[in-house]
């Protein structure tokens, strides 16, 4: 029983603590939710409520909030959420007020003509021959389209969407009327909007190009080639798909109107054509340089010969001077040597005398030591010297004075 009671208290404490923390969190979140509320449209709130809410990002939008916003604006279809599936799509369809999306609807591809540049990648990719590019715009044949999505994945402008068949047919039928760009919600276009009819071509600004060949590797039409570490776009085969521009790490490839690109390319060609004239000028200059070199060579030879003669003369004179100086130096050395020897002799004699004197001093000192029992440099005893010591102390001082 005692053991049970002890456990009960601990359990109660733990439960209380976790419970209170949870309660506080709930209250704080509740308050924060109302204080920091961002006013959103009621419809968008309802759409958001239908979504699963785990922010997986599978829809391609930043979290469920982003997806709800996109669906609310009409940018995304009601079945954008892949995790939610048809159930969530039906609920959102109800909120948005569009017709309920039937489950067995086939999926078809549809091309947003405003973003299509007619690069024909979709036509090449389609395994069922359902996409055709006519007048630089791609069209999907909805009868043969299988909804496999290969064209949508390949499109560099992301201009193809997969949607339910009914919606696709609806948009397809509405096409001739929806020519005004205002009908499309404002998306951020990757390429500049093309004026009606002018195709886009890629052009490489060579001054920033480093020759990394990423553009060449990624061009689906083999229209870019790198030579001498500079990339060039073949204006005829370029389809204006923009893949090279997006891959360029130096951002030096620009998509521009075909006429402008052609003008710039022509300028380059002109510069290249001018190269032969440059070469000719270079050759002439080279010849002149050669001639000048030859002449200069001759002059140099003549100057060398003269310099040689002069050098010989100078050498001879210098040799004579050197001889004279050497003789004088030898004489001086002799003189100095003899003087030095004499000085050394004299010094030796002095040293000998001093040594003899020093010996005498040492002998005397030794005699002193023997007499008094301490060296001449020893300190006198501390305090008043005794009678005996006073006499010896005076003697030593007298001797020092001497």
């Amino acid at each position, binding site marked *: 029983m005692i053991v049970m009671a002890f456990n009960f208290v601990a359990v109660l404490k733990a439960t209380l603590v976790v419970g209170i923390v*949870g309660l506080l*969190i709930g209250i704080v979140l509740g308050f924060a939710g109302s204080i920091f509320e961002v006013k959103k449209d009621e419809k968008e709130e309802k759409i958001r409520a239908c979504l699963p*809410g*785990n922010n997986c990002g599978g829809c391609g939008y930043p979290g469920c909030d982003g997806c709800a916003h996109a669906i609310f604006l009409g940018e995304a279809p009601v079945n954008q959420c892949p*995790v939610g599936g048809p159930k969530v799509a039906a609920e959102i369809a109800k909120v948005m007020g569009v017709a309920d999306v039937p489950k067995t609807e086939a999926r078809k591809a549809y091309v947003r003509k405003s973003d299509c540049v007619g690069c024909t990648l979709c036509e090449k990719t389609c395994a069922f021959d359902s996409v055709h590019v006519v007048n630089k715009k791609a069209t999907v044949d909805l009868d043969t389209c299988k909804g496999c999505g290969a064209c949508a994945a390949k499109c560099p402008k992301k201009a193809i969407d997969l949607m339910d068949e009914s919606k696709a047919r609806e948009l397809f039928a509405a096409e001739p009327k929806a020519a005004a760009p205002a009908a499309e919600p404002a998306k951020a276009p990757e390429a500049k909007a093309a004026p009606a009819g002018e195709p886009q071509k890629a052009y490489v600004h060579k001054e920033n190009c480093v020759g990394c060949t990423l553009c060449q590797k990624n061009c689906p039409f083999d229209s870019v080639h790198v030579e001498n570490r500079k990339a060039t776009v073949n204006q005829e085969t370029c389809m204006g798909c923009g893949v090279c521009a997006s891959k360029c790490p130096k951002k030096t490839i620009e998509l521009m109107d075909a006429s402008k690109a052609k003008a710039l390319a022509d300028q380059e060609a002109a510069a290249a054509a001018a190269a032969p004239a440059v070469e000719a000028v270079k050759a002439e200059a080279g010849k002149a340089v050669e001639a000048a070199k030859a002449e200069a060579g001759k002059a140099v030879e003549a100057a060398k010969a003269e310099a040689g003669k002069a050098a010989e003369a100078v050498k001879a004179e210098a040799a004579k001077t050197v001889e004279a100086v050497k003789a004088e130096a030898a004489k001086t050395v002799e003189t100095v040597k003899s003087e030095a020897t004499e000085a050394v002799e004299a010094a030796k004699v002095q040293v000998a005398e001093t040594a003899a004197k020093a010996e005498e001093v040492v002998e005397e000192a030794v005699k002193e030591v023997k007499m008094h029992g301490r060296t001449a440099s020893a300190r006198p005893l501390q305090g008043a010297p005794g009678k005996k010591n006073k006499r010896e102390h005076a003697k030593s001082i007298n001797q020092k004075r001497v």
Partner: protein
Amino acid sequence: MNKHFENPFIDTIYNGIVRENPTFVMVIGMCPVLAVTTTASNAIGMGLSTTAVLILSNMIIAALRHIIPDGVRMPAYIVIVATFVTVCDFLMEAYTPELYQSLGVYIPLIVVNCIILGRAEAYANKNTVYLSCADGIGMGIGFTIALLIISSVREILGAGEWFGNPIYTASDFFAPIEILIKSPGAFLVLAVLIAAKNKWKWVSDKKMEEDAKKAIRES
């Protein structure tokens, strides 16, 4: 690799082990994979405790899926998983102290293991208790097998042991590669194993394509 079984229970287990292996295929829950695979015994310990927590939490969440309101779903799951992890922590501290010491802070980190919360979100709150239990078993065993493979490679090649038993002695022919035991080794072994799995998948996908094409031609 794409075999399907009749019995949904067995099929779900097979799914977790092979088709959607959390480490090699889905590449989630990587933190313990890299951290505890220095020895095979650590790996088994971590794998089994994660499996236990996964099975229990899947079952409880599946049982409560109609009751938990939508707004507090995530916190509720987290509390359930955290409770089981704390219990597991206590049991390991009491009954397997050496394992507890070597796993250290990674036992409480089972709570935020992406596998557990991910499966709770994706599977347990939509399926019955029976199938959620199967999913827990499958994912857990798949995770454990992956841990075992990686730790065996690291321990045998890096330290010459397996489960602490010496396998070979260092000789002129082959000496243990120390880097495999340290942090870079974990990344390297994982990279090579996932590349091997990719190659296997690529080869088997190609084979499937060829078979399908042959079948279409012949039909």
